[in-house]
Every structure is written in structure tokens, then in C-alpha cells.
């Protein structure tokens, strides 16, 4: 066991765990942040996607020792009030079915929009190909990303 200081969603947490423990399980079992989901454990489904210094990463493959030096953002910290344009778009378009994969979808999509504010369908295919939705809500996920891009553009215009 070793002690690590994790910086998650702007707060610091000390945990005492084996260094190889995946960030996923530290979040879920030790920090009681269960929004990040377990799906496959081998980086194939992306339900566990979090941002490490803004880069979308699979928490199931990230040892806690590698997460301690970076800023971790989880679905719980995607926005302070649940009003990230993607979260608004997801509610407006009623994207989710079971909802289990959606935290990972949102984190992948948020990283996409952060670097590409108005993605094409091709950009969406590329950025979202790692995320499995077993309910197969891809049609609405795509629409949700486009809608969030519109909401962000409108907000930028309003500020300008």
C-alpha cells in the first residue's frame, strides 16, 4: 500500500492503496465517485473515460500512481452545475436509454468539443469510436454532440 494525493474535480484526496490499483476503482471504491463506470477492464468499452489534464483516458487502465501527478476530471466534475452544453443537449434530446455508458460518452465528447468546437460527422466517428453503447443510442449521441456544439456557439455569440 502507498499513499497518493489525487486531484479530482478541483479537490485533493489522499488515498492509501496498492500503486497498481486502477484509477477507476480508486474513484469508485475509495472516493465514492461512482459516475465513472466499469465495463470491460481492458480499455475496450470506454465507459470509464475520465480526463487526465484534459485528455480523455481510460480509468480502468490508468494506475493510481500515474494519476497522482495530473488533474483528474470525472463526470461528476464535468461542470459545476450539470449545465455543460453536452449535459444540456443530452437532456434536451433524451439521449440515454439505460444510461450506463453515457458518462464515458460525455467525457469523450467533451474532450472532442474542447479541441474542435464544431465537429463534422467524420470527426465524431473518429473521436467516439472507442465508446460502446450497448443500447446503441449512437444516433442520438451524434445528434447530442451536434446540438451541444450549437449551444456552445450560441453562448459564444451571446458573449461576443
Amino acid at each position: 500500500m502507498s499513499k497518493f494525493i489525487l486531484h479530482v474535480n478541483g479537490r485533493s484526496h489522499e488515498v492509501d492503496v496498492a500503486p497498481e490499483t486502477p484509477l477507476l476503482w480508486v474513484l469508485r471504491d475509495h472516493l465514492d465517485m461512482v459516475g465513472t463506470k466499469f465495463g470491460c477492464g481492458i480499455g475496450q468499452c470506454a465507459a470509464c473515460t475520465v480526463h487526465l489534464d484534459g485528455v480523455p483516458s481510460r480509468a480502468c487502465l490508468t494506475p493510481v500512481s500515474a494519476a497522482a501527478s495530473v488533474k483528474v476530471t470525472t463526470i461528476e466534475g464535468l461542470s459545476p452545475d450539470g449545465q455543460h452544453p453536452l449535459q444540456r443537449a443530452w437532456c434536451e434530446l433524451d439521449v440515454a436509454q439505460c444510461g450506463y455508458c453515457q458518462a464515458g460518452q460525455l467525457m469523450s465528447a467533451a474532450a472532442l468539443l474542447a479541441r474542435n468546437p464544431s465537429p463534422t460527422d467524420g470527426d465524431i466517428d473518429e473521436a467516439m469510436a472507442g465508446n460502446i453503447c450497448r443500447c446503441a443510442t449512437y444516433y442520438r449521441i451524434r445528434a447530442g454532440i451536434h446540438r451541444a456544439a450549437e449551444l456552445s456557439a450560441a453562448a459564444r455569440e451571446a458573449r461576443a
Partner: protein
Amino acid sequence: MSAALPSPIGRRSFLRLAAIGGGGLVLGCYVRPSGMAQVAKPDSGTVDGVFIPNAFIRIAPDGKVTVYSARPEVGQGIKTSLPMVVAEELGADWKSVSVVTAPLDAAFGPQFAGGSMSTPMSYEAMRKVGAAARTMLVQAAAQAWGVPAGECAAENGAVRHLPSGRTLGFGELVARASALPVPDDAAVKLKDPKDFTLLGTRVGGVDNEKVVTGQPLFGIDQRRPGMLHAVYEKSPVWGARPLGANLDHVKSLPGVRDAFIVDRTVPAGQITGLVPGVAIVADSTWAAFSARGELKVTWEDGPMPDSSWDDFARQAGELAKAAPGSAGVAVARRDGDTGAAFAGAARVVEASYSYPFLSHTNLEPQNCLVHVQGDHAEVWAPTQNPDGARKLAAQVLGIPPENVQVNITRIGGGFGRRLDSDPVAEAAAISQRLGVPIKLTWNRTDDLQHDHYRPGGFHFMKGAVDAKGALSAWRGHHVSFGSTMGGDAFPARFVPNYELFTSNLENGVPQGPWRAPGSNTYAWVTCCFLDELAHAAGRDPVEFNLALLGDRELVPGTGPRSQPYDAARMRNVLRRVAEKSGWGKALPRGRGMGLGYYFSHQGYIAEVAEVTVTQAGALKVDRVVAVVDVGSQIVNLSGAENQVQGSITDGLNAAWRQELDIQKGRVVQTNFHEYPMLRMPDAPRVIEIHFEKTPHPPTGLGEPALPPLAPAVYNAIFAATGKRVRQLPISRSDLSWS
């Protein structure tokens, strides 16, 4: 039992409410036997002054309405749609309605989620639940104003006196309504559907905000004080017992609290409940997972250690040659004289179709939290079948079912897998030994190798068209594993000479319902073979199938698994899908349209897929058009469209690349890298959905839009390439053309 119910009503109130209906209720569930509504007394957790007209509704003095959702939410949207039905009839303002998941309790009637049955079973009942409460609120307002109740109407959370325009909010009526007798069934008038303001509109899921902010909704998210984490290793060969394991070593590993063999099978002789295995209990999920990596178990051989897909295929081929009625070949139906029809046919077509075993691959791995204390247990489970979970847990624990309290969580995908309760049984057995709350978590390999699979199967087909191009004979031999086509399988009753033979192969593979059981492959075989016959007759497939359906209306079912078939409803969706899809338009080589249609789960659905296949054989599904007849009323338009979009895309998911290989009595695949799921780039970008409203009771949409998709795509592939492929999944076949 220290834990409170996850509901704002205390346990005593619930027990009182439970007396309202009894176990078998559906329609009578709002009738209180005492005949009196009551303001809830201040039981633990009860807010005083709350109007509780029945088990499903409570209205607080501030006007806030709470509606209980009885059925498990697996992503089918039922937690939103059935409360909408209650709110519509109640006249509530949807914005002021909160929806709470009910625990398992007889007061709520049937609580399973499966077979697309929730809507057909509960739609009318939920209307009456809402209408009964509305009747009482209207009476209360009429009393307050001293006017006839007939002059008052409930809307947007208030009762309005129509002549004067006066209103009283529901909250203001709570005290008075609570003193009124619950009205008789006959006195409760349902709304005219043309006055609906909420049903048929697009309403977002009631948990959407919690989903997008990562709140702990799912089974795997549950936790209790003092909880430990467990894993459970079973033999990869189904049903094999552990003979020994390095338990002392495992127990010495960091964070491990216990490791032990469970050598029980409950129910006895079955492989879909509790089966023998090795449990490891640890302080954290990762500690349990890590320790499992060092677990070494010696397994017995198991009952069928040599089962393999290749051997199943060989046996099926032999059965196909055996005479109908001989050993292993049952005659499920025989109409007319197929022999004579084949002899006199203009064209005869023979073909063999096969499809593999599939896994459900719920994205939330199987899991369960159980706390056993003495002869009581509390369960938190992502289960489609809470009553089944209760009974199995009770059986494993040797306690009465009523001593098991089941809390229903949101479910990270059902698809039929969670109608079975094996993870509940495992968690219960482990918690019983340790006496603390145990959260059991399966990993993905457990999930793939210990699923209760969609059975694979083989269809040996022979069909004929006569000189006029009409289908004159149909003969099918279905070989599968315990569940085969029934004698009413389409096109039975629509072709004069029809034979269906069935065979079941012995195997050791656990099986269970997979989204649209049976139909998910029968539609594919049936519509693909009909497409072959249409082309053999030189006729357009839509026109050929319309002719097959003839001019009859409701065709009665026949035989032991009889199923009426409404030919008029099917003809309608066929015509409409041809119209909406632009059927018959000229397309270049490499592009094509295909038709699939099927009646299942009480829905009549036709789909046209439009595909592109490159010369090198790369497939893209460009567009799918669906015409859906599930009766007179779409409950939640957003949810209904979502189910159809999802079913279409999931149908493609299953049809394109999914197959399990079975070797040496076990599934070979271990994770998603070996069992590919459809991903964003392959999902159809254009999906058009048209609902046909017909004067029939509303039925469910969790399943019936899936079966037509695979044949629509296969028939489109043929139209695009001229290649007829007859195996699922698509990835087994080379689609290249020149």
C-alpha cells in the same frame, strides 16, 4: 432490518397500501378495501398531510405529486412512460411530478420488465390509477365550491370550475380529498384520448439529469456501511464443480477477508441459478479482482465437456437428412401436400441458414448487493425480475421469500439477461456466510462465459412458387437447442402447403431470453427466404409479400402455441414502408434496398434498409426506414422513437459481427476485443420512423423493432451485390463483387 425503504412513505404505510390490491391485481389496484382514502399518519419518514389515494400516487399539501414507478428501468423508458400515463389521467402538471422507483411490493402488481409486456399489462391500469385520484380531487373541489362535480375538470395540477373559472390547486384539495371514499371502478371515467395533452408528446427521461451528472443510480453503484466486495469464479465448462483451490494462498493476499468454495446448485440440477464456484471476499473490488488473478482451481470435467459449435453444426446437418417424424425430428405443423406442390412447382428453392449463440453483454456487468442478517435479507439488484430474485435468494438462504426485501435499482442494460437472478443467488450465499453486506461484481469474462445465451440454430428451407408466381409450398426444418419455432410461425396459415419440422440438440449451454427471443432470428430466416422466393418468382419483394398476406384481416391462431396474426395491420405497414422509403427507386450496382417485416411482442413492424457495399465488400448501412404499428397510442414519443432507433442499431450490432464460438464445453471469447460491438462509425446515420396509429390497445416497444432489421439488411446486400448470404453474422461472409 435496519435499513429504511428507499421511499418517502414509511414501512407501515406501505404495508397498509399493500393491502390495497394483493398480488394478482392489475386493474383493481387503486381500490382501497376500507373504502376510505387516508391522510398518511406520521410513520417513520412520512410527511403528514399527504394524500395517498392509492399505492402509486401521493400528493403533498404543497401540490407536489409523487408517482411510483413499479417496473424496473432497463433503458426501455418505463420509469418515465407509465408515470406519464398516471399524470395524464390525474391532470397533473408533469413539471411538478417526481417519479420514485417502487421497491418490490405486492401493492404494485406485476413488477417484472420483460417481453415488452409493461405497456400492454399496465397501460389501462395506470390510467385508472390516475383517473381515480383525479375523480376524488374533482369531487373535493366541487364540495368546496358547492357545485356539481360535472362542472369541474382537473388540468395542470389544479381543479377548475369551468363556468366560473375558479381554480384550486391539488395541494389545496389534499385534506378534503383524503376524507372522500375511493370511487368505484364504474364511477371513474377515463379521459377521451383526444384530450390527452401529455401522452404522445416527447418527454425526456425522468433520470436524465442524474445520468448525465454521474449519480449513483445503478446496481453496481450501491453501497452499504460495512460492505465488503466479492468475486465468484465458476468453471468455464458450464456446470463443473470445483474439486479444490489454493484458498490459503488467496486468503493471505492483501485486502482479502475470505476465500471459500461454494459447492451447491440451487435450484438443484439447473445451471441458471446458483452453481458451484469459488468466492473471494475483499476490502475493495480491486483487491478481490487482484486476488482472483492468483486463484488456482481444479475443476471436474463437467457434464458436457466436449460441446462445440462445429459438432452442433455436424449434428444439425445429419438431422436435416432424417425423415420427419423419425427420432429427433418432430412435426410442428403440416398443412396441405408439400410433396405434390414441390412436384408441380414452377420454381423450387432450397437453402440452409445458420445463426450463432449470442451474449447479452449488458454494459453494466452482472452484480448484486445483498445483506443477510439471520433469517432476513435485503437485496439491491439491477434485476428485470425482482420477484424471481426474491424467490431465488430465499431458496438459496433457506428463508421465506417474505423475509427478503428487494430494492430495484436502475439497470445498465437488460435485454433479457436480468430476468435470471444468478448474481443475486451468488451474493446471497456469500453474504450469508459472512453476515455483512456483500457487493458481488462480475468481470467481463464472467459475463461473456457465464451468460444465459441466445441459442444458435439452423434452418433447412425448401420453398416453391407456382406458375403464377405465388408461394405454393414452404417447408422448414428448424434445429436448435431447447426452444424451436412454433407451428404458427409465419408464413403458416398464408400458404396452402406448409410443413415445419423441429429438432433439439443436446448441449450443456445455459440459455435465456435475448431481446425479442425467437423472433430475433426467425424474422431473419423467414424474410430472407421469402426474398429468395420472390426473386425466384421474378416478382418485386414488397408486391410478393403483400400478395402472400392476401386479403384477410385477423387470422386466428392454431395449435398449442397459437398466435393470432392481423394481416391487415401487416399489409398496412408494408405498404407504408414502401411508400416512405422510396421503394423501387433505381440504385447503382453496389447499393440496394431490402425489406424486413415481422410481428412480435404484439407489434407489426416493417423496415427497409438501404446499404452500400463496395466492390471490395465493405458494408455501410446508409438509411433505415421503419413503419411501426403498436396500437392506438404512443405514450412517450421521444422514448418510443429512442426504442426504435436503438432496436434498429442493436439489430445491426447483433447481425454484423457478433458470434460466440463454443469449444470444449465453454465459450471461447473473453472480452470485447473478441466479441466486437457496433460502434459509432458503423451506426446508421439516417433512421426514419413512422408510427401508424391503429384502433388496438397500446403495446410495448422494447423488442419488436429489432427482428425486421437483420433481414432488411441481408436482403439489401443481395439487392446491392447479387450475393445471397445465409449465415449470421454478416462478417462470416465475403461481400465483395465484381
